[in-house]
């Protein structure tokens, strides 16, 4: 009996850990952002990236921002050497909001806040982004081009700055206690079909998980 319990417990753990590792999926209230252009720049002995984003202010996105609810733009950057080893990473986060009472648009980054009166100015600023320098020159091999992987998402209506786990995974676990029975029980539920379609099919979760885009990352970027 005890052996059975141990085997079952082990099975639960293996199953759950596999599932959790494979299901770091996109938050469904996200929109994929396409990066049109990426150029490196150097500052002292460090290198950063300037990005040009494809326009993403659809009617849905514009309407949401203009009604006073904030969105969060997030760009992930990953530099890999010729052996495909990660040698540097960075994340650009911008919170885009509109104060309907002051009629001012606002972009917040971790260290600055920019204000605009025209929506067009906000759009233009959002489409040209600059990362902080995030990799030192000596980490890059001068004879070989490193590759930078980049992906962008817009989290439509977000109270949090960053959310890594998908909602359905986050909340899959325990149900609140009921009063129907005198014995206590605690468990978890997992939608197996959603999990399968996340990897095999064309599920919305899969679609909203932005694909990585790849650019060459030379170290001879312009000094800025």
């Amino acid at each position, binding site marked *: 009996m005890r052996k059975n*319990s141990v085997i079952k417990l082990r099975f639960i753990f293996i199953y759950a850990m596999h599932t959790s590792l494979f299901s770091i999926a996109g938050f469904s209230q996200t929109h994929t952002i396409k990066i049109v252009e990426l150029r490196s720049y150097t500052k002292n002995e460090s290198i950063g990236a300037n990005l040009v984003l494809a326009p993403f202010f659809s009617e849905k*996105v514009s309407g949401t921002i203009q009604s006073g609810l904030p969105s969060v733009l997030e760009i992930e950057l990953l530099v890999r050497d010729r052996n495909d080893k990660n040698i540097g990473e960075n994340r650009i986060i911008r919170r885009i909001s509109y104060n309907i009472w002051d009629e001012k648009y606002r972009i917040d980054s971790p260290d600055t806040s920019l204000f605009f009166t025209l929506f067009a100015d906000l759009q233009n600023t959002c489409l040209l982004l600059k990362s902080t320098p995030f990799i030192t020159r000596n980490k890059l091999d001068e004879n070989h081009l490193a590759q930078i992987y980049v992906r962008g998402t817009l989290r439509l209506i*977000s109270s949090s700055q960053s959310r890594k786990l998908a909602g*359905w995974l986050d909340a899959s676990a*325990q149900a609140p206690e*009921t009063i129907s029975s005198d*014995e206590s029980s605690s468990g978890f539920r997992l939608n197996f079909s*959603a999990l399968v379609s996340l990897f095999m099919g064309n599920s919305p979760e899969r679609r909203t998980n932005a694909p990585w885009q790849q650019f060459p990352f030379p170290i001879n970027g312009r000094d800025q």
Partner: protein
Amino acid sequence: MKKRLISIFVLTSCFVTAVSFAQSKSSNPDLIVQAIEITGQTKTRANVITNYLTFHVNGSISPEKIEASWQLLKQTNFFKNVEIYTRPGKEKGLVIAIIEIEDRRRPYFEFAGGHSDLDGWYFVPASFRFDNQFGRGNLLDIQIYLSDRTSKFSINYKHPYLFDGSSYFSTELYGGGRQYIHYLNGLQAQQDVNFTGLKMHIGGNEGLFRFIKLGIQVEKFEPKNELKFSNNDSVVVDLQIPPDLRPNDEMTKASAFTLALGFDGRDNIYYPKKGFWGAAIYEKATKELNSEFEYSRVLLDGRFYQKIFGTHVLALNVKNAYASEDSPFFKRFYLGGANSLRGFSERRLTPVGYGTKLFLGNIEYRFALTNKMVAEPPVFGVLFYSQGGLWQNDAKINTDEMFKSLGFGLRFRLPILGLTRVDFAFPTTVLDDEDFQLHISLGQTF
């Protein structure tokens, strides 16, 4: 010098007060929902969707409310995709919320698992769900339930929002077998009990009715006339079995109604720091309901939480239960185990024929082991003391006969599984020369 210091202090205080006042004055009014538009649905009725929203027309809306609504809609699994966005309303401060959904058309599989008092670790390896039939938001599933001690097949139905959302109705049709653990002279034995049954419950979602749950259940039990001992594979049958465990007939039918009252005043379900949770359950089987035997059971369960400082919380649980003398052993109470009295193995403290008078008290001192997410710490520790006793009808409750234990534990949050619990418990009442028990389970103890 002293005067200068005083004047600096007064000026600084005035400045701080003025700034905080200006900030409070500059906080803007809430955004108000002018209308809710639902698009994309081909099956689901609009009222099913609005039942899961945390904002309503003419009420306030915020990113937090939208995220919570999105989570609730997603968790139903009625939809392949849910998106909530907004556009400006006809006046400044008004918002039109748009719920864009894609209906799930086909049934789906669900996997489930967990830990329960009665069954130990359990799995639902195959649950086939037919939720949201005809777009009415009802839940229907067929599942196979397997555990250390139970195998069960069941069909479950629930309508979570009946009568314009004021009530819910659920029913379960099931059949299977369960092993009941008995201790005879310190030796563990199992008795198989086959069962079939139908349970129906109705309860409220709002008003005073939300604290009440009414139920009716018709069950048939077939206790086997043999006990299997796990340590030496021996089997005891017929007259050698203690009278309390002997079946009267081949099949016993019990029909009962239940009345459950519940109140949840905790400030947080996951890591309560303040508040009270209470439940009172009354179950009565009578011949008027076509029951072959009559019994009654009452259970009172109270939980209190009080923050000491920071994330340090004192939690107290008191559980009292009573079953009438004529109740069969499978309707009585047991003691010992991870969710019962820690420090002792599962049901180790249960008298032969199970008990009819139960007292269980647990006190826990909880503290976060990380500074992150202070409201719901992902890792926290527990120091506990437990005390309990279980008696049969003819026995007198004697506090000196109670069993006691103390120990410490660790709680951590895992993806999928949720809150996982590991307890190291040390009995202060020595039994079987066992001085330590490791309990692994899910969720809070209480």
